């Protein structure tokens, strides 16, 4: 259920970001399906491969896509479990995404270009710095509910005996801030990185895929969108209502995805990219938000 919804929302996620940006800057802008059309065009094209690169470079986009795709199978939909669900599945979820990044990084190094090496280096560092935030957040939510899989955590988050719904929503809000920024970091958007500056020295993700073209580039673009929708799906799970009508929850899901995408768009319109050397601080700030969740949970369950 949630898998299909994630796939659906991934189709227009980047489109909404671009649309928000164009509205805010007073341009007419492309329609929300424009990125999808771009991807379709790319998928039809042939590729140019660097003579330096090896099979790693050709394999990496496939791995990147597969890991994110497999990770999407984990996301539950309110009280319906995800296609894959078992205890501590979030560990596998995080490590699957890491596997995709691993291949992206080595593919960037495979081209032997100094720009791509630069991007790879930053990506490796930032993803390492972002790791604690995810684990602390999920750990705290698990502590709050007493469960240890995505499905159990999310399905019981509002019905825990120890916490009133208000607190659950407050913590959910904090957690969604964490997921929101994690999505931004993972996709290298403003304020960590600006995909629109075409100055290689300041880019992270975009500079890693300078040499990708055709099918590979299309796959990478789509995977980026899918990754956003993935985190959007996680956020939506924090706010589902327990209602007999799935329609309401589907509406919540989509409106949160749209909200997420437009937030990204708004942030991109009104904020400048941070200086490169400030990025680590920014990423660690998210970890501190997640620590706040942890302490909040500790207070709620009465251990402090």
């Amino acid at each position: 259920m949630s898998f299909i919804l994630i796939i659906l929302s991934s189709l227009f996620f980047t489109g909404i970001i671009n649309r928000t940006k164009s509205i805010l800057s007073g341009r007419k802008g492309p329609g929300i399906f424009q990125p999808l059309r771009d991807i379709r065009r790319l998928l039809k094209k042939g590729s140019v491969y660097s003579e330096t690169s090896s099979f790693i470079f050709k394999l990496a986009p496939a791995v990147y896509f597969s890991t994110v795709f497999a990770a999407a199978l984990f996301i539950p939909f309110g009280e319906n479990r995800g296609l894959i669900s078992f205890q501590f599945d979030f560990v596998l979820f995080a490590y699957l995404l890491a596997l995709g990044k691993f291949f992206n990084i080595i593919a960037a190094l495979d081209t032997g270009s100094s720009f791509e090496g630069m991007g790879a280096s930053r990506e490796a560092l930032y993803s390492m710095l972002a790791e604690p935030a995810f684990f602390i957040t999920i750990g705290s939510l698990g502590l709050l509910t007493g469960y240890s899989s995505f499905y159990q955590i999310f399905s019981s988050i509002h019905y825990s005996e120890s916490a009133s719904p208000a607190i659950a929503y407050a913590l959910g809000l904090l957690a969604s801030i964490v997921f929101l920024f994690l999505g931004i970091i993972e996709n290298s958007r403003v304020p960590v990185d600006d995909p629109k500056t075409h100055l290689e020295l300041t880019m992270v993700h975009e500079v890693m895929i300078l040499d990708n073209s055709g099918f590979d580039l299309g796959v990478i673009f789509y995977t980026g969108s899918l990754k956003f929708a993935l985190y959007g799906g996680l956020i939506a799970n924090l706010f589902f209502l327990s209602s007999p009508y799935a329609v309401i929850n589907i509406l919540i899901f989509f409106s949160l995805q749209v909200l997420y995408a437009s937030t990204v768009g708004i942030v991109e319109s009104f904020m400048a990219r941070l200086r490169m050397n400030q990025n680590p601080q920014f990423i660690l700030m998210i970890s501190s938000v997640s620590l706040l969740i942890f302490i909040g949970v500790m207070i709620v369950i009465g251990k402090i």
Partner: protein
Amino acid sequence: MKNRNGLILIFLTLALGAATSFVAFNALMGRNFEFVLSGNTILGQIPIRIDALSAWMILIINFTFTTGVLYGTGYLRNYNTSANLKLHQFLFFVLHLSMILVCSIQNFIAFLIVWEIMTVSSFLLIIFEYWKKETIKAGLNFFIQSHIGVLFIIVSFIWVMSQTGLADFNAVRLFATHQPGAVAITLFVLLFIGFGFKAGFVPFHTWLPYAHPAAPSHISGMMSGVIIKLGIYGILRMLLLINSNYIVIGEIILFVSVFSGLYGVILAIVQHNLKRLLAYHSIENIGIIGIGIGIGTIGLGLKNDFLAVAGFAGGLLHILNHSLFKSLLFYGAGSIYQQTHTLEIEQLGGLIKRMPRTAVLFLIAAIAICGLPPLNGFISEYLIFSGLYSSLKSNSFAFSLFMLSVFVALAVIGGLAMLCFTKAFGIVFLGTERKQYHVEPKEVSRMMLFPQYMAAVMIISIGLFPQLFLQLLKNPVALFVPDILNSSNGIFSYQSGILTQIGFIGIILTVLVFVVYEIKTLTGRNKINSVSPTWGCGYKTNDPRLQYTASSFVKTYSNLIEPILSMHKDVAVVNEIFPGNKQYSTHYYDKLEFYLIDKNLKWLKKLLLKLNFLQNGRTQFYILYGLIFILLIIFISYGEYIWNTIKGFFKLF
């Protein structure tokens, strides 16, 4: 001639491996092997016991030695010094035998003897290239530090023996149960330090980064793969015997392990030498194993079976996993060294085109060591994660916070390992070549590749079918947590069910990657695909010097981490109008090594220099020293008697 010796060694290793594996496998399945040698008056009875824990270690040792002997025979083919080679092969067998004995002998003195044989033979194996100064230096460093470790083990063994009068390992149990808790903990700490030197826990790790690069690659593989694990074996064995105060002991282990894990990987990233990098990674992995054992021990203390099973199963499985991927990585490094004669990461590059098989094998091991699915490293880390996560729900805030920080530390270790191995693999194998070779590097011989395939197959099969290997761990874990043998206790089948799913997802992922890749190649057939130089932002010369180097890859990181590291920079200042060639170099040094080893060595040297007059080369003096020594011994052993006589003498008045 040379070949024959190699074949004999292979045969002997396989024979020993097969014989002991048979016994070990039976023990692993629950039929323990026990045999008591009558021994003599000094040693006492020598029990040879192979229980599931010993069996697990013996099987790991046998597998690693099998790959090691095959790889080593291929690797050493280029060395022509035949006498040296024969000694090397002989010692290799001695090392194998002594390690198996270490795992099975349970008599204090006999254990120390085989432990010594192991240390000495590995020392001699390390200094195979004895004509190099660094090799000898590294070897001596290892030798001395091992003996400091042994000192701690001897002291604690003597302590136990003097209190119980027994030389059997079971005396430790007797000792620990009859003494107050603080004494048992002190004993454990002594033993932990002793075995910790072998295992390479921080701060007893400083020999590792020297010894591994100095040794020939198959020996580095053995050292990192199994020798340091015997330190872990010692700790586990003692843990079984000292069965009290588990919570405190567990917290000690956990604290040291987290520190080792973080410190190891933090330093690994900035290394310029491939084998040194791998050596620091061994410290990190020992840390991960230790985290598993630590939470397992805490689980025992809290009577939380789930925690204990997750911890011990994760730790024990990680011992196997690390022995597989680390030996594979060292074999890969050895192949690189054999073909290019350098291990400096900054000078290597583009080897994937010259040595494609080595590159793929190295990549598999690199993914596995980062703990990424679908390979084996993930399985053991998952088990440890599951334990840590369930331990968050404790009653005390401080304990939860401690566990949360371990939880986060493990995640950070994983992230840092990824940074480290993207660097190691990416810079060494990918991109363009950074250096002209006198002899073109080419793929290594089949003899060297075959054992690497063996290890890789194991890595993949543990990753995809983890539940089978978890079943093998049932008896070793049951030594610590006997409850799980009850059929009503579902923890093991529960974890095994989850692991089945993880393995299944691994298979799905592999299929998915294959499908996407196939779609690409199938649809790409009719399109125009072309090959051209890498996008150079307008620059056309494809100069290898334009590539990102290993140092620049980790530059942002090393700036962040600089306060922890001690870094020496040689920066050339440009102040002329037409500057000549300038050099910039960075050297990283282990801060702990500086404070703990180098500084202390300095004053020790000063002190010893003052005693220099004792060594004056005159035979008469040396005889005098001997005499004084004998008199002292007599005096000490009869001290009490003499003291009583004197007292009695004074009482007369």
